[in-house]
């Protein structure tokens, strides 16, 4: 199969919950280190006590003394620790994922899971609506609301660097809210087993400065000028009926059965986080999507010549 090109090369930590770049992930990472600080001593204590009891002690304890160990170690210790921990976590929950009314959110991103890619729609209260796929962009510091559902299997939406996961379930709409705190490029991945190529269902998550994001979003709300580019790419796209599944803004093709391609040329990856974007990657994916991603629903185009593939790929790459 085609290589999983290192889009995020040398970026160890782009998908790590321990390198937080968001409000929720930051809180949870702190909670984790807190629990490690408490948990390791407890573990060491229990193991040391067992070793003392079985190997190191010289004289047996009296039975009633030993029974008191059960009470203090088995009841008092866990009750105290757990009550404190639980209280902290329950207190944390509502602030991490406030769901009281979607009107608060000034940016709403609707995500629909498909085998094995993501359909994405950005919505602003002012009516801006941008359809995209397989890439998420967020403004830093702004609380973003996600509306999550699925058209086929259960998937799970997860950007570890920003926060925890939430499932995409057919027939249900789940909500998640995230606030990014650090500009950067991160990686998200499907976290619920969804079929053959579940492992290959990823996406880049790009946190941008507010102004840059606004510029980007406004540009995406208009069709790409690349649709009118010279060359035979567009004609080949039409002749091979690619438009029966793929939407391209500003054209007659509006189906969303497959990923939206309106600005595919400007995305970082092809195939939901699998190949670094570029004409060659586009050409190889068009030629045989199943070779990149087993079980992909896109048919192979083995009848196309290399030259034709290049034409299509060049045209698609031009959709910036």
């Amino acid at each position, binding site marked *: 199969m085609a290589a999983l090109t290192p889009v995020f090369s040398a970026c160890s930590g782009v998908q790590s*919950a321990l390198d937080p770049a968001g409000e929720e992930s930051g809180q949870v990472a702190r909670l984790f280190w807190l629990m490690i600080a408490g948990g390791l001593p407890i573990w060491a204590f229990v193991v040391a006590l067992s070793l003392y009891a079985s190997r190191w002690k010289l004289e047996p304890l009296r039975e009633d003394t030993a029974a008191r160990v059960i009470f203090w170690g088995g009841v008092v210790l866990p009750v105290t620790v757990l009550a404190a921990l639980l209280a902290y976590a329950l207190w944390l929950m509502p602030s991490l994922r406030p769901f009281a009314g979607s009107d608060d959110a000034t940016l709403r991103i609707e995500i629909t899971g498909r085998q094995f890619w993501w359909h994405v729609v950005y919505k602003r209260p002012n009516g801006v609506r941008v359809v995209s796929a397989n890439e998420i962009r967020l403004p830093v510091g702004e609380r973003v609301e996600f509306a999550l559902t699925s058209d086929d299997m259960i998937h799970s939406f997860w950007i570890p660097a920003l926060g925890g996961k939430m499932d995409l379930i057919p027939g249900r709409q789940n909500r998640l809210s995230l606030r990014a705190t650090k500009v950067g490029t991160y990686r998200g991945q499907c976290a619920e087993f969804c079929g053959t190529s579940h492992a290959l269902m990823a996406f880049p998550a790009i946190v941008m400065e507010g102004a840059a994001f606004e510029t980007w979003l406004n540009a995406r709300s208009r069709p790409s000028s690349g649709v009118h580019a010279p060359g035979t790419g567009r004609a080949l796209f039409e002749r091979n009926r690619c438009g029966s599944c793929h939407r391209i803004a500003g054209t007659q093709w509006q189906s969303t059965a497959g990923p939206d391609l309106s600005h595919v040329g400007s995305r970082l990856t092809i195939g939901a986080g699998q190949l670094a974007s570029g004409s060659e990657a586009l050409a190889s994916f068009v030629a045989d999507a199943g070779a990149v991603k087993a079980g992909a629903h896109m048919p192979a185009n083995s009848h196309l010549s290399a030259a034709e593939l290049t034409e299509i790929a060049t045209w698609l790459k031009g959709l910036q």
Partner: protein
Amino acid sequence: MSAQPEPTRDKATEEAQLRAVWAKPTGWRYWTSVNNAQVGLWYGATAFAFMLFAGLLGLLIRAQLAVPQNDLLSAETYNQVYTLHGTVMMFLFAVPIFEAVAIFLLPPMLGARELPFPRLGAFGFWSFLIGGIFVCGSIFFGVAPNSGWFMYPPLATSEQAGIGADIWLLGLSFIEVASLAAAVELIVGIMKCRAPGMRVNLMPLFAWYLLIVAGMILFAFPPLIAGDLLFELQRMFDWPFFDPARGGDPLLWQHLFWIFGHPEVYIIFLPAIALLAMIVPTFARRPIVGYSWIVLAAVGTGFLSFGLWVHHMFATGLPQISLAFFSAASEAVAIPTAVQIFVFIATMLAGRVIFSTPMLFAMGGIAIFVMGGLTGVMVALVPFDWQAHDTYFVVAHLHYVLIGGMLFPVFAGLYYYYPLIGGKHMSDRVGRFAFWLMFAGFNITFFPMHLTGLRGMPRRVYTYPADIGWDWLNLISTMGAVVLGIGMFAVVMDVTLHRRGKPRGEVNPWNAGTLEWISEPEENWGVRSIPRIESRYPLWDQEALARQVNAGDWYLPDAKEGRRETLVTSVLDAEPEQVLRVGGTSYVTIISALTLGTVFVALTFKWWIVSLISGLAFMAAVLWWLWNGTGDIPEKDGKDIGHGISLPLYASGVKSVGWWAMFITMTGDGTAFASLVFGYFFFWTVHADFTGGIAGPGMFWPMMALALFALSWAATLAAREANRRGKLAVAWILLGSGALTSIAGCAAALAGPLTTGMDPTAHVYAAIVWTLVIWAALHGAMGGIMQLYCLARSLAGRLTARHDMELHNVALYWHFMLVTALVTFAVVGLFPEAL
């Protein structure tokens, strides 16, 4: 009571008789044995073999993930491998190994000759073997289940799941039936077959734990069986239980699966703790400290385990308030668990500990398990779980819990109890060597996974990109897995290869205090005579007990009538009540398991005719089994068991073990039914438009069905009374007309949805109504068959006014049936009217 040998007895003849009656068959007929010692051993060896198979699958997983972008396995193969790894470990090893150990150990531990239903135990084993081979074999044809051991719809109901999903559903349903059979056997055995004097507060802890676990199986497995039923109805006939387009909801399966799945974890864990509860006192050379603490803690764990299931669903979008509730409950279960661990620590503190190989495995297991418990406390916190859920952190957590809390204790148990198999001992040197390999290998494999998961690696991925921080962690895990594998291999070699060369050693090399250590491995009779117990550790506290028991000085030392017999005692105080005759060597268990297995296999391939024929063959086999093997009227009323005690040979009603078996079976059955009713109301709550505009079954036919079933119930009760008064003709008429009424009730039940034209494929409302009605009708039909069975028994003179256990059991069945009918027809007939 003193144990004076009686002068008139000819002990040599007695012993020869006993040996002949309990003899295990020889040659190929050996496999028709139903004795607990043989069945327990086969069961254990089979479960162990499945564990090794699943372990190899685990090594394949690690080989594939050793390096990024590996193409050793294709995505499809990998998905089959990891699905089967989890499925086999959970269903074919973790649960059955304890059924095996319990079947093998409980009779000698309780001072019984045999469990009350040996043939049922053997039937369970053969079902397990057939179902297990069927499920495991599928991977060699590339058609193994590939949707994960949790089988979430819509993926597992889709065509992508292929026949593997059916193999999973039907193969495992079959095995779940075997588990339920074992649960019935163990509960009745522990409640009714203890040695005289073994009051509940003197019961060995292993028996306490197994009683709790068997009770949990009874309430945990039926929801899964109900889920399997709905699932298979969707796969085979397109009834849309999990299809949101037609009113269904994929989350219903997750609820049913985890209502089973979480107690399952404790069903696996508690018996392992039970083994430690036997091992630790032996090596601390003193009774357990805090007997009541540990029993209460085990009961508490059992109860709490049913209130945790939603912590597997924290990321499914349920309301935060319910997440908070289940988070709190999940934390709470850590408390009784901690109590159990500290009971062991306290016992060791108060004793003088000998550190042998079983103790090494026990202590290693506790060290690992405590780590798993602490990460469990972490993932039970909702915000942390949102990150950790479905990542390698959870993979690490669950392996720490299950391998520390189950596999290591099982190995401790293997080293501890091995002398009971033919008096041979395992090698201490190999044991220590294997322990350190396993302990190190385990930690090298699974400790890094905590980090792998938090660095973002999800579970169930067949490949991963290089350079995002997972490469070296995965490579270390794979190397550790190899070390773990070598450690396991060393134990396997010790158990199998060297067995022949080992000399016969002491049977009780540890100087343990419980009754099972009296047994003579060369004899098949369980115990030579059944003693009266006055202590929790009778071998420590009752001097000369072992000698007296093996000299035949105690109760029931003979088998003059040539029948296999054991004592039945009262539930709480274990006072002798009855001499129970149990079934002996027979083909009928294998034939029953084979025919039932064929039903499930044929259903998988949709060979309807084959499954129908084998279904009828199965029914015939079971009827033959019941007719010839149960409820026999003894040739005399009572039997002298020695020491001036004479006990009846026959009991009916509450005193009979059969009545208890029926009660327990129907409790499980009722739980499955309750799960279906839960499904009905679940659909009602999730959708505003519950009925989807479909007309219900109306009121008339459901109420008619209810009336008819109530009549049939009354007829059964009246027949029991008439029979008791000796009015046989009246009883016959009542039973015959009862059966006819039952059949009429079934017809009326089905007439409801039929007459209003409910199409079960159109909408989930129609589908769930049909399911409930068919469930009630099938149970009604079964009740009719039982009434006819009693009629036939009575006509054949095998059921009389004084020997009427079948009538009592059938009446009990009909009590449950009446409740089923009441609920079903109120729900389908009256509830829609109230909307």
